[in-house]
């Protein structure tokens, strides 16, 4: 299933955030419609639990509502921040670590591609999946263990029985391939 629809997609994330800062509920609703699918899907991929993923989704957008004034668009992409924050929270829940606090204005995420339009999101989804599908199995496994399971390179090395250096190389190679999506 992919995000669909084009209604109201001409407003930038920054404009929506500015309106959220003025307590505009419709702006938050629009932002939620824009990114809830991505955030929810990522959290669910990590947790494999619909309810837990929905909880993270709701908490994250509630945080956006409460702390929108602190977000500095110069420091990065809101979509990127949402994805990173959702991933961190899901990993924390998965590994029962203490909560990770992400301040909008402290942890910048530069996503050098515009995904404000659902069409752009769909395009990127297709590209990333294509790249992941093209990666050697061991590279994809190492990357997914790190991102979706929160494993350190040491843990991945233990799991796969490969030397630590090999694991690092695989992750780096996979990341290089992934970044080509943006070029």
């Amino acid at each position, binding site marked *: 299933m992919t995000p669909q629809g084009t209604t109201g997609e001409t407003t930038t994330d920054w404009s929506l955030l500015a309106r959220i800062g003025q307590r505009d509920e419709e702006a938050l609703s629009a932002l939620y419609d824009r990114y809830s699918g991505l955030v929810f899907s990522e959290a669910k991929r990590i947790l494999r639990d619909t309810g837990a993923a929905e909880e993270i989704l*709701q908490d994250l957008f509630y945080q956006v509502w409460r702390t929108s004034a602190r977000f500095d668009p110069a420091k990065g992409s809101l979509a990127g921040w949402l994805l990173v924050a959702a991933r961190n929270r899901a990993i924390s829940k998965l590994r029962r670590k203490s909560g990770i606090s992400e301040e909008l204005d402290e942890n910048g995420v530069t996503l050098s591609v515009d995904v404000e339009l659902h069409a752009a999101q769909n395009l990127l989804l297709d590209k*990333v999946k294509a790249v992941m599908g093209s990666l050697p199995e061991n590279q994809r496994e190492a990357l997914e263990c*790190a991102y979706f399971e929160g494993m350190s390179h040491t843990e991945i090395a233990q799991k796969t029985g490969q030397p630590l250096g090999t694991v690092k190389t695989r992750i780096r190679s996979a*990341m290089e391939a992934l970044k080509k999506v943006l070029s």
Partner: protein
Amino acid sequence: MIQGEHIQLEELELFALGALSEDEAAALQAHLSGCEECATKLAQARGSAALLGFATEQGRPAGTVKAELMARIRANREAERRYAWPSKMEAPQGGGSTTKADTRRSWWNWVLVPAAVALALVSFALSWQNRRIATELEKERKTAESMIRDRQQVEKMVGVLAAADTVTVKLTGTRDEGNANGLVKFNAKAGIVMYAAELPPLPADKSYQMWLVPASGTPISAGLLGPGGHAWGNMWTGEVPANTQAKAFAVTIEPVGGMAQPTGPKVLLGAT
């Protein structure tokens, strides 16, 4: 890991993926906190890592999630509105410039200080009221206990007086202390009721004690006629073992609290 003065991008990407060990991550954090250039590169590395969020099968959350979110937001707005600084009222003035944190503290003080005072007053009032209620409850409890004792006394007297096999024993004074006299109603099963009249007052350390003189054996105490005794007006009830056969009744003057056997002078005496 750290090449020259800065962190290599590859390391930052591993950091962004969460793939570094805790020690390695801590070392990077220490550098990042003071290096704007590396912080900028970390933002890029995070962006690259975030691409993996697009490598998932897309789904949709339940509609109720958004509805609950909007409800939370409205509740938050309502709280903000309710506790907003009064528009016609100025914040307390302090010397020098005021930081945002100071403003927040002042705002909260405006709300919290009166609330704390009000809570203290309410707490004091409740404490005082609790003490008053506890005193009243204790008083009521004692009254209720007294009423219960009186009722039990009356029921016992009625039981003795109404029984068909109750016998009456007239007591007469044995000393020259006026016209002291008495009357005993005795029922071997229901107990003893004694009416005493014109008994002279006793010193504080003395008490009248009623005795049942059985057909055989030593006298049995039937209770006190005074402090510690069971009275209803001038009528007293006494306790003796059930089915005791009485030969006579007597009243003596004994130390307060009574004695196991009569030791003092007889005041009243009467045979069955």
